[in-house]
C-alpha cells in the first residue's frame, strides 16, 4: 500500500491529529520549561522596580521580595505585604490594591510608612480607555502622585473621593469612574493597613518560612 492510499484511511487522520497534538504539546512543554526561570526572574525584577517606585530611596536596606508575608482580606482574598526595614526597624509596607474600573480591575501597588502615611502609589495593571482613563499611569501623567503624603487623617474620610463626589482628588475630563476606582482602592489599602498595623511587621516572612 502506498502513501496515497494510506492517506485516505480514516485511521490515518486520527493518527495524524494525534501526532500533531503530541508534537505540539511536547514543543509547548519544552518552551515552557526553558523559559520558566527567565520569566520568573524578569517578573521578580519587575516587582522589584515597582517596589522601588513606591518607596523613597534609602528608606529600606532589606530585600523586600524575601521579607513578604500574606494576609487574608475581609472578603477572603489574599494580599501579599512586602515589608521595608532599615537596620531591622520597620519603615514601611508595600502591597497591592485593586478597584473595579471602567473596564476590569485596576491594580495598584502602594507603599505606606509605619504611621500610615502614603509613600507612593503606582498603577501596575489596568485596561482603562487609552487617552482617557490611562492618565492614572505615571508614564501618562502626574495624577497618581496626588496620593503622596496622604493618610486616613488627611484628608478626613468625607474628603477621600474625587472632586465630583466632594473629595479632594481630581477626576479627568470624560473619565470619572477610573479615578474614583483608584481613590477607593487606595482608601481601602489604608483601611487594610490600619486594621492590621499591629501584626504587619511581626508576622513571619513567607519565603523564610518555606526555606
Amino acid at each position, binding site marked *: 500500500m502506498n502513501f496515497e492510499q494510506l492517506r485516505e484511511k480514516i485511521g490515518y487522520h486520527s493518527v495524524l491529529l494525534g501526532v500533531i497534538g503530541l508534537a505540539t504539546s511536547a514543543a*509547548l512543554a519544552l*518552551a515552557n520549561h526553558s*523559559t520558566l526561570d527567565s520569566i520568573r526572574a524578569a517578573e521578580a525584577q519587575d516587582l522589584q522596580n515597582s517596589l522601588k517606585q513606591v518607596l523613597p530611596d534609602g528608606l529600606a536596606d532589606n530585600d523586600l521580595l524575601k521579607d513578604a508575608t500574606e494576609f487574608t482580606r475581609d472578603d477572603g482574598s489574599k494580599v501579599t505585604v512586602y515589608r521595608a526595614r532599615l537596620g531591622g526597624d520597620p519603615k514601611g509596607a508595600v502591597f497591592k490594591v485593586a478597584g473595579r474600573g471602567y473596564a476590569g480591575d485596576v491594580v495598584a501597588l502602594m507603599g505606606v510608612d509605619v504611621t500610615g502615611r502614603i509613600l507612593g502609589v503606582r498603577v501596575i495593571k489596568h485596561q482603562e480607555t487609552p487617552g482617557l482613563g490611562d492618565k492614572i499611569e505615571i508614564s501618562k501623567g502626574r495624577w497618581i502622585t496626588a496620593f503622596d503624603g496622604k493618610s486616613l487623617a488627611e484628608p478626613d474620610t468625607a474628603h477621600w473621593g474625587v472632586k465630583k463626589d466632594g473629595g479632594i482628588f481630581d477626576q479627568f475630563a*470624560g473619565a470619572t469612574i477610573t479615578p474614583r476606582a483608584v481613590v477607593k482602592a487606595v482608601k481601602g489599602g489604608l483601611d487594610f493597613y490600619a486594621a492590621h498595623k499591629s501584626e504587619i511587621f511581626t508576622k513571619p516572612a513567607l519565603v523564610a518560612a518555606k526555606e
Partner: protein
Amino acid sequence: MTTNYREIAANGLWDQNVVFAQVLGLCPTMAVTTSGTNGLGMGLATMAVLIASNIIISSVRMFVTPQVRIPVYIVLIATLVTIVDLVMNAFMHDLYKVLGMFIALIVVNCAVLGRAEAFAARNTVVASAADGLFMGLGFTLALVVIGLIRELVGTGTLFSQASLLLGPAFSFLEITVLPGYGGTLLMILPPGGFAVLGLLLAARQYMEHRIAQREEAASASPLATA
C-alpha cells in the same frame, strides 16, 4: 513550478493586502491601532508568526489531509503563538510589556489561518516564507497607516512611545504635530477605527476604479495612444 516572487510581493503589499483587500484580521486591527507605534508592534509580531506558520505548514503539507487540515493548522498556529509569547516574555521582557497583550490576539487573526489555507498548503517552503513576509509587511503597513491617522486626529502626535518599542535610538520618530491639542476621543475609541478603515477602503476603491477606467480607455482607443 516556478514561483513568481514579484507577484507574491505585490499581492501582500497591495493586491491581496490582508486589511485593505481581504479585510481579514479586523479584531486586532481595530483593537490596537490607537497609535502608530501600537500598529507597528502588532504588525511586526503578526509578521513573525505568519512567516513561521507558513514555513511549518508548507513543510508538513504532504502529510496533512484535507479532511483534518483545519484542526491541524489551528493547533500549529496556536502553539506557535504561545511559544512566541513565552519566548518574548522570557528574553525580551521590556518589549513584551509593550506588546504582550497583542500577542495572544494573533491567534484570532484569521489572516494567519487564511494564508495557511490559501498559500502555505499548496506552495514550497521558500515561497510560503516569502508570502508570510509580504503578507506580514502589508498587514504592518495597513496597521501603521490606520494607527497614524487615528493617533494624529485623536491625540495630535505621531509614533508616541516609539522608543519603548524600538529602543531609545528611535525616539526621533516621536513627533508632537499639534502641541496643546485637546484630542478627539472618538478617534481613539473603536468607532474611530471603523471610520478610518472605511475611509481608507473607499479611497482604495476609488483609486482602483480610476486605474481600471484609464486602462479601459487606453485599450479601447489603441490609435490614440499609438
